[in-house]
């Protein structure tokens, strides 16, 4: 049976060219980069190369790149790191501000949300800036959410569930204005802007100067690179404390012997995906719009979640009413189609997707949710197969459902 993988937002297969680039760094070049001998130096050179290559894409300095163990870890380091550095600076100068505040949105990935919630438990104020019905941050509300006690803003570049792209550049400009204003008014407290760009990495511009971010998270597993590899871009001057302690690698911000193969692989993956970014984006966006149009014709009561245009090219997120997402997912799985759902029934907590609910959609929409995320190996033929199979699954499940929601 054919297998159609439409869960690329969960993770991507490792590109064979990435695998090839990584291969020597398991048992041919294996020295500890911290060692002075030849083998160690070889490893160190490889890391330096990777750092340079990533810095070139991000338009930053190589020393502003910190390698971590995952996107989640990068998010944790950015958020906890900024908060703890600020607390440390308070204790040193004996300076008390009116309280510290972190601004984020309700549709962030749990790596950001739960880290912010942890800080809330540790005494920080947490403010959720509102998103509109398509999941786009409302800038006017965002401006109001920021006060003199805001030390960190964390807004994702593109959403992992609904693919909505946030106005990062505009947010960056707002933050720049706030920074300038604070200097003018002699306010010492810093304000940093972090974005999680894991989902955006293969499709959008990662130039940190244009985006105006101070911290940016990337990972390998969404761009055909290795899993268990993350990057945190840290703008020079950003005060950060580590969350992992030990040998002092990565400028003391992330101790632990470097994952050389992973680092090399991630750099290669980013290079490959950014090189083909524009043409691949255009190809997938066309497929995306084709699928959304066709499925709306073939199936009744289908709703698109997220913004129709401000959307990642690979993301299709729909709610099919009167039936439940996990049941659809299992039927699709039986036909060799792999996707995901935000339904309560498929979550550990039995709570439906926080993202769909944050759009102001009722629970029925979250429970009838399906997400198809394409990748560079997805073809029109794959989508046509889904378009053939899905309507039958929907009508079968509807034929045993007692629910008939009005929209």
């Amino acid at each position, binding site marked *: 049976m054919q297998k159609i993988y439409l869960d690329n937002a969960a993770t991507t297969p490792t590109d064979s060219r990435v695998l090839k680039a990584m291969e020597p760094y398991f048992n041919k070049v294996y020295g500890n980069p911290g060692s002075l001998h030849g083998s160690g130096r070889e490893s160190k050179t490889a890391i330096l190369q990777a750092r340079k290559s990533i810095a070139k894409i991000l338009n930053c300095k190589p020393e502003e790149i910190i390698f971590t163990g995952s996107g989640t870890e990068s998010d944790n380091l950015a958020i906890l790191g900024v908060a703890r550095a600020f607390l440390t600076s308070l204790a040193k100068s004996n300076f008390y501000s009116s309280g510290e505040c972190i601004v984020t949105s309700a549709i962030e990935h749990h790596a950001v949300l739960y880290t912010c919630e942890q800080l809330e438990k540790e005494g920080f104020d947490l403010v959720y800036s509102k998103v509109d019905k398509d999941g786009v941050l409302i800038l006017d509300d965002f401006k109001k959410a920021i006060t003199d006690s805001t030390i960190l803003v964390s807004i994702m570049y593109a959403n992992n569930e609904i693919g909505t792209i946030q106005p990062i550049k505009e947010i960056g400009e707002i933050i720049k204005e706030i920074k300038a204003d604070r200097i003018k008014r002699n306010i010492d407290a810093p304000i940093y802007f972090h974005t999680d760009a894991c989902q955006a990495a293969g499709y959008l511009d990662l130039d940190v100067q244009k985006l105006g971010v101070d911290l940016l998270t990337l990972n390998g597993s969404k761009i055909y690179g290795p899993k268990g590899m993350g990057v945190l871009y840290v703008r020079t001057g950003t005060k950060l404390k580590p969350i992992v302690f030990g040998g002092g690698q990565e400028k003391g911000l992330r101790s632990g012997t470097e994952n050389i193969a992973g680092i090399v692989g991630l750099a290669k993956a980013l290079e490959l995906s950014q090189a083909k970014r524009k043409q691949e984006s255009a190809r997938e966006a066309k497929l995306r719009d084709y699928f959304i149009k066709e499925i709306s014709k073939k199936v009744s009561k289908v709703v698109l979640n997220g913004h129709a245009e401000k959307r990642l090219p690979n993301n299709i997120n729909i709610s099919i009413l*009167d039936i439940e997402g996990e*049941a659809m997912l299992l*039927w699709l799985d*039986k036909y060799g189609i792999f996707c995901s759902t935000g339904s309560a*029934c498929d979550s550990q907590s039995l709570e439906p997707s926080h993202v769909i609910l944050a759009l102001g959609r009722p*629970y029925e929409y979250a429970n009838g949710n399906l997400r198809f995320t394409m990748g560079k190996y997805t073809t029109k033929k794959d989508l046509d197969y889904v378009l053939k199979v899905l309507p039958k699954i929907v009508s079968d499940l509807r034929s*045993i*459902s*007692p*629910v008939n929601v009005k929209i």
Partner: protein
Amino acid sequence: MKTKAKIKKTDVASARVGDGWVYSETVKDHFFHPRNFLPKMPKKGEFDAEGQVGSPQCGDVMRIWIKVDPKTEKIKKLKWRTFGCASAIAATSMFSVIVTEKGGMTVDQALAIKPQDIMARLGGLPVRKVHCSVLCDKAFMQAANNYFRNKGQHEKIIVLGHKVIDKRLNITDHDIEEAVLEGARTLLDVQKKLKVGVGDPEAIPAIEQLIKFYLEKYYG
């Protein structure tokens, strides 16, 4: 080790083991090939009674129709429609089989079916999914009550009275039952969900007793 081997063999985590997410072959079979469901809404008088529980908001809705032989009181037909995940569909399907197989059960006999009887026949369910299978017996109880009402057997109607355990928060034994079904195992778990007993420490012994009772009932 024994439990691990068992999981591998049956491809399912029993409620007791907990963390697994894989359905048993029986669950898959009843999900992909549901028995006794009603593809079209019934005509008037086609059934003797019906019952429904759940809401699409919480993710599961079940509706059950029954046809009872007036002479033998045996359930000749039990049909259903379910909105929900695989385990909800499979559990309703299995329930309909249990009730109607071997000539059918009487309404009283069918009322005695416990959630764990359905789960046992399904070859186990992941612990988070237990509440789905518990819904079909509740839907049936509604149908049975309606049946008794129609037949004038008012003394048989089952009234579920809920006892208030925490007066401050108005939390009932039913809320604690739900919490246990959703995975709470200890007083602390239940308190995380319900804040029960936090402002009413006198209620704690009763809460602990109820947790023990429901753990035994559903996972025992």
